[in-house]
């Protein structure tokens, strides 16, 4: 069902007009066709990644990609690293979270340092909303946002959209419930933007203490009742709940959260019979999601999301470096 969703190249504007951005700082900057362009490009890499021993393409050979992670991450960092390496780039990881680099003018100084090292692309994760934009404004090469504070995590939204499109055959006209700690979640923000932009009905299911203000302005409906919120949904997207949210400030306890908002098989019966269950990982099994659902390959897309992550990041790195590489039509 995958190839039928890919649009022919002639459907897109020619060359660089198909994706008119120097950086990928957020979904907010993208048009629906640009999202679909990235998803189509990613399909190609899914095939390569599944092709057995030689999962390699050398189009980024000679380019240097720096993964500058100012906040700890395992899977996103690994995913970007693999993506860069499969495209033949020299990938360097900078774990700024463990060094003395914390904040202040040093953030800009660090950016200038990376710039002076003539990186060809910089992937950044930072704990502060807007930090990636701040760096993008200062450097000469493309910058990819790997998560900034509560603001955006665009590659996560793109990989989620690709996963949905492959499982459901489309990523429009669906009812999608995003459940959990929306307030602190950049994954939720990017997904709300991407999925509404693509023409889906997006619902937010969260306790009121974890629902951001003015959600109606984001074109979503909010629910505080989980059963009601996931009723007849095509997609149930769970969010990770950080342990520190369950210490009484936002939620009374983990067990109360599980009782009211945990995704159990019983609760999932409210959704459509063929509904898929997503989770950006890492999961708190037994808190926001029951193991029996997480491990149900028919329902859960969790490992597929990880797989799509590499493909989407390969597509983003390829597209954003086309100008430097002098690809015809991209100048």
């Amino acid at each position: 069902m995958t190839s039928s969703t890919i649009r022919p190249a002639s459907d897109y504007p020619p060359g660089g007009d198909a994706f008119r951005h120097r950086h990928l700082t957020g979904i907010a900057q993208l048009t629906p066709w640009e999202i679909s362009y990235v998803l189509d490009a990613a399909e190609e890499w899914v095939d390569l990644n599944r092709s057995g021993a030689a999962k390699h393409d050398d189009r980024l050979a000679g380019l240097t990609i720096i993964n500058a992670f100012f906040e700890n991450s395992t899977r996103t960092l690994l995913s970007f690293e693999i993506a860069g390496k499969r495209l033949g780039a020299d990938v360097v990881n900078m774990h700024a979270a463990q060094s003395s680099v914390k904040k202040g003018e040093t953030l800009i100084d660090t950016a200038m340092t990376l710039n002076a090292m003539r990186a060809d692309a910089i992937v950044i994760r930072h704990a502060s909303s807007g930090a990636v934009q701040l760096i993008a404004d200062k450097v000469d090469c493309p910058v990819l946002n790997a998560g900034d504070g509560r603001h955006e995590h665009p590659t996560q939204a793109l990989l989620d959209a690709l996963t949905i499109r492959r499982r459901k055959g489309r990523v429009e006209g669906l009812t999608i419930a995003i459940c959990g700690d929306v307030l602190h979640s950049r994954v939720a923000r990017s997904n709300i933007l991407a999925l509404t932009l693509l023409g889906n009905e997006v619902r937010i299911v969260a306790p009121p203490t974890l629902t951001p203000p003015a959600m109606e302005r984001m074109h979503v409906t909010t629910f505080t009742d989980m059963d009601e919120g996931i009723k007849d949904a095509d997609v149930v997207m769970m969010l990770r709940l950080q342990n520190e949210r369950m210490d009484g400030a936002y939620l009374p306890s983990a067990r109360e959260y599980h009782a009211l908002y945990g995704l159990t098989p019983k609760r999932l019966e409210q959704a459509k019979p063929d509904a898929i269950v997503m989770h950006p990982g890492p999961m708190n099994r037994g808190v926001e999601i029951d193991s029996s659902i997480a491990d149900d390959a028919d329902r859960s897309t969790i490992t597929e999301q990880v797989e799509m992550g590499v493909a989407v990041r390969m597509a983003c790195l390829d597209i954003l470096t086309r100008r430097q590489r002098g690809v015809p039509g991209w100048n």
Partner: protein
Amino acid sequence: MELKPLHIVNAQLVDGDTPRAGSLLVAGGRIAALDPTDIPEGAETVDAKGQWLAPGIIDLGVFATDKPAFHFGGITRAALMPDNGPLDGAGLVERAAKGGKPDLWVHPLAAATKGLEGRELAEIGLMKQAGARAIATGRSRIADSGVMRRVLSYAASLGLVTIIHAEDEGLTAGAVATDGEMATRLGLASAPAVAEAMAIARDLALVEETGAPVHFRQVTTARGLDLIRAAKAKGLPVLCGITPAHLLLSDTAIGDFRTFARLSPPLRSEDDRQACLAAVADGTIDVLASGHDPRGPEDKRLPFAEALPGMAGAETLLALGLGLVRDGHISPGRLFDLLAATPACLLGVDAGRLAVGQEADLILVDADTPWQVDAKKMAAWAGNTPFDGMPVQGRATMMWKGGLRIR
């Protein structure tokens, strides 16, 4: 110092609602006569060439003694907030008061509590003797209602107004923006606008209880202004102020994480902004101030939530105020009530009006000449203005402090 009498002719005097043609005589550092007929021998004559002659601006509540910015902005007196230091002792107050000599009046606002920590009363009486003109709670409010009540009654017994920052700290903890679409889209921690009204409500109850006079330095929400309006109708001794930023900008100005628009209190919704404009027009708001708080790149060129709040406002205060006149919100006379007369009254200084016997702190205002705000070319020691690039009209062209020409 012997000062020659000064005769300013061919001016438009701002001593009523609308500027009127006239002249003014200064002798002995004070305003000696309006439209004088008897000009003393040897008086220096200045031709105002039809420009407005207005009282020098008294900027109530600035965070730095930034003379070049004040002089550019036509500000002859600055009431200095106690936060740097903090100003919680007589010696510090005395030194701050001298910080503007010889060409700027600095009126220190004494810290209401020791270290501005909101726990113990500061030596308010001694600071008054050292030159403090009012007391202030600083950048935040006094959380403990018991302490606040004692501060109010104690300051009132000394004849001092308490200047209050009104935000409920429980609601605003960690927040860097006002709840709304903008904060949600940017992923910034935000607080409900009602945090302001809640703080105002508590303090108004204490004012009613103690009879102490207060000034809410910035009231920026419709609900906060409604409370002030009701308190005034009851006859409570309450004043409130605002900066041009909250009159002219809403929270959309923080888009793209512009840290120059990170203010305290944060910028509000468009509805609140409209309510503020209405409150300036209907007389609920008494004071227009710059909130001058210059911040260099080390404080501002940071991710939004890590940047410090504050704006460099002294240079743009007059021009943006003139914009309110031009847009029909207020009259020229009312503008200078907001900028000078009411602050003077609050501080208990003989200035702020064109009237015989007042200190001759005067400015000539070219009300129309256009210019553009440019963050890179500010007189202030930092260019953190949220109005960067904005075209404005009007500026001070000449200034006198106590009859002495300083610009």
